[in-house]
């Protein structure tokens, strides 16, 4: 839903330490803060926290959607079913493939553009806006746009075949597993570069100029300066971008649904499209919930591991 909401999650968990507080008479302390909290908290607990617990509970049931039918408790059966389900594993593999293929380019190209944009110039804001434009454009619109670009008679085939002579230009991109996933990754990269660029740009502006100048004095060449000065200085931002993009990779949904709908024959199904189909097409809410819980666990473990790396990385530099 809120795609980039995770953008600050990592920092958030680190800055739980609470801000300065105004001293005030004891009497007021008791009710006032709770009155300010109440409306948002009620909504949040009712519509986010409660469903979280509910998802876990539902995953333990053979859930019946029809009114009047009783759902039976089946323990971990939905989970063992997932473990034995080839489509589940293919979905996991496809999500992993998407991550592996779309994350590195977003980091490398994003950083490259940020470095090119670092020097202040009158054109800088214009470029910044141009590269960021795909980020703010609706997923639905760009998914359909890329479906059109990768169509059999589409622009991609024309450019790769007739103009660049890479292949014969008659690739049916969206009708087989790997080419379709590549097309979906291409969309992910195109849409995501601007976001990582913006984070890197902010981080680069925080690199102390004195350090860079000192490196120049020492006769360091461009690459050495990048490795010794720039990279360590932007390491926290780099780690942050990696964590967010990896989590985002496992959240790929709309682009897959609209470009291939998981087809042909479930070949391009990712975990979320599979979960969605189990729940809302097959009406198997229990199994769908189990997949959602498994995916949440994967995402949590991955981000914990990376946050650990992030933390130790940050301390090294100080």
């Amino acid at each position, binding site marked *: 839903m809120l795609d*980039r*909401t995770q953008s600050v999650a990592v920092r958030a968990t680190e800055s739980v330490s*609470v801000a300065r507080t105004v001293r005030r008479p004891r009497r007021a*302390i008791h009710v006032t803060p709770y009155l300010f909290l109440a409306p948002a908290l009620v909504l949040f607990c009712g519509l986010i926290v409660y469903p979280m617990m509910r998802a876990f509970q539902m995953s333990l049931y053979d859930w019946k959607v029809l009114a009047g039918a009783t759902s039976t408790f089946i323990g971990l059966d939905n989970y063992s079913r997932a473990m034995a389900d080839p489509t589940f594993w293919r979905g996991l593999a496809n999500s992993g493939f998407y991550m592996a293929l779309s994350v590195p380019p977003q980091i490398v190209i994003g950083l490259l553009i940020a470095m090119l944009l670092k020097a202040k110039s009158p054109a800088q804001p214009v470029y910044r806006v141009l590269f960021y434009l795909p980020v703010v454009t609706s997923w639905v*619109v760009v998914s359909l746009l890329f479906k059109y670009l990768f169509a059999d008679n589409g622009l991609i085939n024309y450019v790769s075949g007739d103009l660049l002579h890479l292949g014969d230009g008659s690739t049916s991109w969206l009708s087989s597993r790997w080419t379709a996933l590549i097309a979906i990754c291409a969309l992910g990269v195109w849409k995501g570069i601007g976001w990582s660029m913006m984070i890197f740009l902010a981080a680069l502006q925080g690199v102390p100029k004195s350090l860079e100048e000192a490196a120049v004095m020492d006769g360091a060449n461009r690459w050495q300066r990048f490795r010794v000065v720039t990279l360590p200085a932007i390491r926290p931002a780099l780690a942050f971008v990696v964590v967010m993009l990896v989590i985002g990779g496992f959240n790929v949904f709309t682009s897959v649904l609209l470009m291939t709908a998981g087809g042909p024959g479930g070949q391009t199904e990712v975990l979320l499209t599979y979960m969605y189909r189990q729940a809302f097409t097959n009406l198997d*809410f229990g199994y769908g919930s189990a997949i959602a819980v498994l995916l949440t666990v994967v*995402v949590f473990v991955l981000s914990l591991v990376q946050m650990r790396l992030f933390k130790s990385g940050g301390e090294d530099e100080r």
Partner: protein
Amino acid sequence: MSTLHRTRPMAAVLRHVLLTVGAAIMLTPFVYMVSTSFKSQAYVLAIPPQFVPDPATVDNYVQVLTTQSFAAYFRNSVVVSTTATVISVLLSSMMAYAFARFRFPGREVLFRLVLLGLMVPAMMLIIPQFILAKQLALIDSLQGLIVFYVAASISLNTFLLRGFFASIPAELEDAMQVDGANAWTRYWRLVLPLSTPALATTTIFTFLATWDEFAWALTIINDPGKRTLPLAIQLFQGQNATQWGLVFAASVVAVLPVILVFLIFQRYFVQGLTSGAVKG
């Protein structure tokens, strides 16, 4: 200027060439989309592809804009996004104020709970949320979209605003308090007006997120009269041959407001994006 940044003219030229090529690649899909929105169906997948539509036609736009329901979809999107944004920013800022300015039992626990919302991806909750919406009779209603959008945006907004509120000097509030202002007055008359940049950031983020939201709308909306723009656009790709011209004319109409908002407020956008991530 330091020696480091006195770049040689050749390097500057090279940099601009690279950036221009990159920007051109980034923009090509958009340009092609706009171009296709002016093509008739016979030419949308013509070989070689046309960048300048010939013959050009505005039929797609006429058809999209004069179809009565498209206006309704647009209106639904405006109603849902503005309502959800206003409610979310109001409630989140109240919550953020409590976290930033009061010390009370349970504060740490509650704040961590709210942050949990940033960690759990929205799609994971879609099944239990659907059941909940059904029990609350919120299926097929714009209210059903609005309340869930508000709930989903509370975490991020509270987090961003709390950080900003905390940076406002407490002395200002103390002074107001001496003058007899209660907490609501201080929040409404002092803290909010001083927080315009942060409020702008959260407003834009929330508006864009709700304007674009697709999965939840797809799940709970069946009634054609309640469709939002993302649902409507997705439905333009028909069962058989997609009417690409129509799809992209509708897309351009839907994306234009967003791009406009982004261009006007991009300053705040950058602040909001980077302050959480890199400051530190």
